[in-house]
């Protein structure tokens, strides 16, 4: 396998779009429930936990860019094979594939769950997942430019929902935040760790890097995307903590969506219904980008042709999404994915970087 990829210029995109790629991938199913998860660990000081997680996020992104810059035009699959050799590299590549698949599944499952709880208790599982999967297939078939376009357009069409939070903000109780630094350091770290699931998606950088035209400019959009993600999670969590009483928040599974419940306009009495339906547009870039990365890695690892593997993956996702029915199983899947994602996305790059450095030095000495 070649470590570096050769990309035709008409397939590549500007670095500017990395902002949307990274951001839309991070914001997805996680944002709907994140306030409760962080609050359970870090209580009133959750915002500190999120800021800590945000800082670490930027650090990981910095490391990832350093790794990628050691190569001309490589993705993670190629880098792993270069560093660990063909076999171990392929095994690690499979871990990525597994991770991408399970995160796809958990995103789809979580969204369907929300729709079933909030709008249509009776909507069949297979119907919802075939909606999402058909849109995913349709977009991924369009190639990388359409995949990026999806994340860009859908971002523009959904970001305005942030402003509707103004209504819950007017109900906030600031007493819930004081006294500051009441939570222990360990609980803060736990909260930061729990933020992980909501901010998974950074790893896409490892896959799209070869497709970026002006590679020297990638830092700014990536970090800006991360900053926006951190800000949104912070906003949603802070508003939730102020809006709910602590005990209530610990019991509210989808706190973000419950915030939407009180928003009403003269033309729409209940905005939460609109928000949940529109949330599909938040989910789509998510699954489209993850699926593209999955297909891409399968193609790189086993030279699988893209169309059949796309259909295959979609079919597997469809079956898996029908088979998992209980809320408990969805939670287990989410937890599992979140743990795997934490190690793969937040810890692994930090380990990989020194290895890449060693490998490069070793190479150089060998070649002399």
């Amino acid at each position: 396998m070649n470590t570096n990829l050769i990309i035709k210029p008409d397939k590549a995109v500007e670095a500017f779009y990395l902002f949307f790629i990274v951001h839309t991938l991070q914001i997805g199913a996680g944002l709907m429930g994140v306030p409760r998860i962080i609050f359970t660990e870090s209580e009133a000081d959750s915002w500190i936990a999120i800021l800590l997680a945000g800082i670490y996020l930027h650090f990981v992104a910095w490391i990832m860019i350093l790794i990628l810059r050691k190569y001309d035009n490589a993705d993670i699959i190629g880098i792993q094979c270069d560093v660990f050799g063909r076999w171990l590299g392929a095994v690690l590549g499979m871990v990525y594939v597994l991770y991408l698949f399970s995160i796809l599944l958990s995103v789809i499952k979580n969204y369907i769950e929300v729709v079933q709880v909030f709008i249509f208790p009776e909507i069949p599982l297979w119907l919802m997942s075939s909606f999402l999967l058909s849109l995913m297939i349709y977009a991924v078939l369009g190639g990388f430019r359409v995949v990026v376009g999806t994340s860009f357009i859908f971002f523009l069409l959904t970001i305005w929902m942030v402003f509707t939070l103004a209504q819950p903000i007017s109900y906030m109780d600031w007493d819930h935040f004081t006294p500051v630094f009441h939570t222990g350091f360990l609980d803060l770290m736990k909260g930061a760790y729990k933020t992980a699931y909501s901010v998974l998606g950074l790893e896409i950088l490892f896959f799209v890097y070869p497709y970026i035209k002006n590679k020297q400019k990638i830092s700014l959009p990536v970090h800006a995307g991360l900053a926006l993600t951190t800000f949104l999670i912070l906003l949603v969590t802070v508003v939730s903590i102020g809006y709910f009483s602590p005990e209530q928040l610990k019991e509210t599974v989808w706190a973000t969506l419950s915030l939407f419940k009180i928003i009403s306009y003269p033309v729409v009495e209940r905005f939460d219904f609109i928000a949940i339906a529109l949330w599909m547009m938040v989910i789509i870039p998510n699954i489209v980008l993850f699926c593209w990365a999955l297909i891409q890695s399968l193609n790189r690892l086993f030279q699988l042709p893209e169309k059949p593997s796309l259909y295959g993956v979609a079919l597997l996702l469809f079956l898996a999404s029908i088979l998992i029915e209980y809320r408990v199983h969805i939670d287990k899947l989410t937890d599992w994915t979140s743990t795997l994602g934490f190690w793969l996305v937040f810890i692994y790059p930090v380990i990989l970087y020194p290895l890449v450095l060693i490998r490069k030095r070793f190479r150089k000495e060998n070649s002399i």
Partner: protein
Amino acid sequence: MKRKRIILIVLLVLICSGCIPKSYIEQLGIITAVGYDMAGEKSIRGTMVMYQFDPSTTSASQVVTSEAATSKGLRFEANRMTSHRLVSGQVRLELFQDQLAAKGMTRYMDTLERDAKVSDMGLLGVSEVPTADLLKINNSKESSNSGESIKKMIEKSVDNDVLPDATIRTFMHDYRDAGIDPTLPMLSSKEDTVMISGLALFKDDRYTAKISPQETFYLLLLKEEYKDGQFQLQLPDEALKEFHKDTPGPSEEGPLHVSLHEIDSGLNIQPKQGDPTEQDVKVTMEARLLEITKDVDLKNKKAIHKLEEEIEKKVKSDLEQFMNVLKENQVDPVGFGKAYNAKNRENRVTNENWRQQIPNLNVSFDVNLKLLRHGTVE
């Protein structure tokens, strides 16, 4: 071409088989207001005001009453009495009879909170008379539905700073938050008219006492929800004697009443470090004099000062009296416990331990009033 045909067939199959139960609004009985009454030891009686649309009848709103053990059971029972399927997605008002509310409201409200269909912005209220009677009064001309008119009445009162917020959201928030108790508007009926008779105080989710509209004003003042509204005070008859105008008028006799329009108010609750029962409260008000029943020379600066002082004294004593009411009932609708929690790390107040501490609460008030203007006549 073949693929297109397959896609088309798949789509058709989807549309045919993927249908979900419809809820056409003309086939629904859309409940807009519910009232719960005690029917016996174990059962409750529910009164539902709902819209149901029938081409044959002119009035869209109807009232149904049923008895059951739980609130969902009520709906189930009522469903057997109507031609339309009853749904709760538009419930905007829930009323509880005082006897029922005294037994705890959340067991009836839990379903409200868990059901994603019910809006959190619905209003709650407690009634001194059976809610069935309230909801069956249909005297309002501008509103087609008695639930709707009660809802508008409460909303108006909240907007005019006569009542604290009465939404389900606020009730649940105050109920679950440590160191604060919820309140709800108290309704009553008088000669076939629904009226707000005061404010219901809650101990956790159990109704304990009712306070008068005058006391409600002091609660609002302490909750810093009083931003723009009017209030009346009765001062000692001879308080401003020295400033009375020389020409004695007919209003010379009788008690001294002042009517004020509050423009702005500020509140600062300062709990003592480490002790939630010791609190200092500083209230600052800016007001406009609307009416005074005695001929006082308002050009005189001293008169204004004196008036301010008298009002401050009166407000302070009323507040202290009001605190006694709260202590007697062991309730804390103001949120003194919460105020303490917000500033202290040690000895924190919880829902459990705060209840015992309320009678020991010692609050010292400091009231500061500024009379900025006094109308068009001097």
